[in-house]
């Protein structure tokens, strides 16, 4: 009996899968729907399989937004493009990578930066412990691509001596209510001339519409401010 029940369950699941994936003929589909309408057990199986469609869609959406997609950018800008445009894009990207390394952002585990300019973010005055007045959360609007990277230009104002110190490193964190969501390591080569740090965030990996804290901590064992924040600002991703 157990084997028979198992076979029936398998057949139901297969049928539900074919239904959800649109593999049934018109007559089969109507017949299956007529049955499901009055069968709570099959309804549960159909909903379970339908959940697979949701998982697949989410995975597709993640895949589409995760990798930084030069082709996507080109596609957005130019629409359907010939292969030559892709080749030209690749050449341009290679040029940027080879000859413009110093201006590249901090190691972007999240996304590569394609936007030429980011949102300038001034921090609360936290330099080496002098805590100033907390600034209101800065709204970071969506860029040209709604789910594309958000580039923040953090005006850290970190002391040049700290930046240049070879024994010093910095940790850039994005936290939500104390929980660290992003943690990146930065060194002097990542800072701009005026202590600016370019931070590229993938908005799909972060909660939108919530106040997130962006921190730059000093990572310099032995220094009295080791582990302490030198820069802090609330931001809100739109």
């Amino acid at each position, binding site marked *: 009996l157990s084997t028979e029940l198992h076979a029936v369950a398998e057949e139901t699941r297969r049928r539900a899968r074919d239904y959800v994936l649109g593999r049934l003929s018109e007559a089969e*589909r109507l017949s299956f*729907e007529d049955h499901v*309408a009055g069968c709570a057990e099959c309804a549960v199986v159909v909903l379970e399989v339908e959940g697979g*469609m949701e998982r697949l869609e989410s995975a*597709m959406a993640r*895949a589409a937004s995760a990798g930084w997609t030069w082709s996507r950018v080109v596609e957005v800008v130019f629409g359907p493009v010939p292969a030559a445009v892709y080749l030209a894009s690749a050449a341009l990207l290679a040029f940027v990578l080879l000859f413009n390394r110093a201006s590249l952002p901090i190691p972007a585990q999240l996304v590569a930066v394609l936007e030429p300019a980011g949102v300038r973010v001034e921090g609360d005055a936290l330099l080496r412990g002098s805590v100033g007045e907390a600034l209101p959360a800065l709204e970071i609007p969506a860029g040209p691509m709604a789910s594309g990277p958000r580039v923040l230009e953090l005006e850290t104002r970190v002391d040049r001596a700290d930046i240049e110190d070879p024994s010093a490193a910095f940790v850039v964190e994005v936290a939500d209510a104390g929980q660290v969501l992003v943690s990146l390591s930065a060194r002097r080569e990542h800072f701009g001339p005026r202590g600016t740090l370019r931070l590229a965030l993938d908005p799909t990996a972060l909660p939108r519409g919530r106040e997130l804290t962006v921190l730059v901590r000093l990572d310099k064992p032995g220094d009295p401010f080791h582990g302490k924040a030198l820069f802090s600002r609330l931001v809100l991703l739109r």
Partner: protein
Amino acid sequence: VRSSDSLVLDGDRELARRVLSAEPGAEDELIRRFQPGLFAIACVRVGRDLAGDLVQDTLAAGLVDLRRGRWRGEGPLAAYLATVLRRKIGRDAAARRSRPLGSGEEELASTGADAHALVERAERRERVRAAVAQLPARHALVLVLHYFENTSVEEIAGKLAIPRGTVLSRLHHARAKLAGILNRTGAGRHSLRGAGEG
């Protein structure tokens, strides 16, 4: 010996009689019996966001029909309600398509969702469904096992007797092919395939 179909039909006729004579609890029973199945169908056809309202409308229409004796008991009540639901899905899709952009305020107030966004989501779902059907068999198989059967990569590898890396590679290629198909079919997104049938 009577078939299970005729037993179901007898039960349906009895329920219809009770609804017609306004017996207490009869309408609740109808909702309890048919709501889950209708909801599952509506979820597949139009997505979860729109399903609830459509099923509610279907059950309300079904009750009115039963109270007025319009259902003649010639076929199962489930099939009758499924047909009502399909018609509603078709009409609803047509109405939403013909509604100009920006006229969804009423919808916003009643459901908290943007009508056009919901329609777009339903259309996107339909495109994914059609795209999966176009995948080569070996890619479709790992995709279905992984996402629809909730099977882990290791389990798929065991089931198909292939290395784990091959499963990962096929999953990757399946998603890439799917994305390619979706990009190609993106132009025809403003249609609700199949929703008006039946």
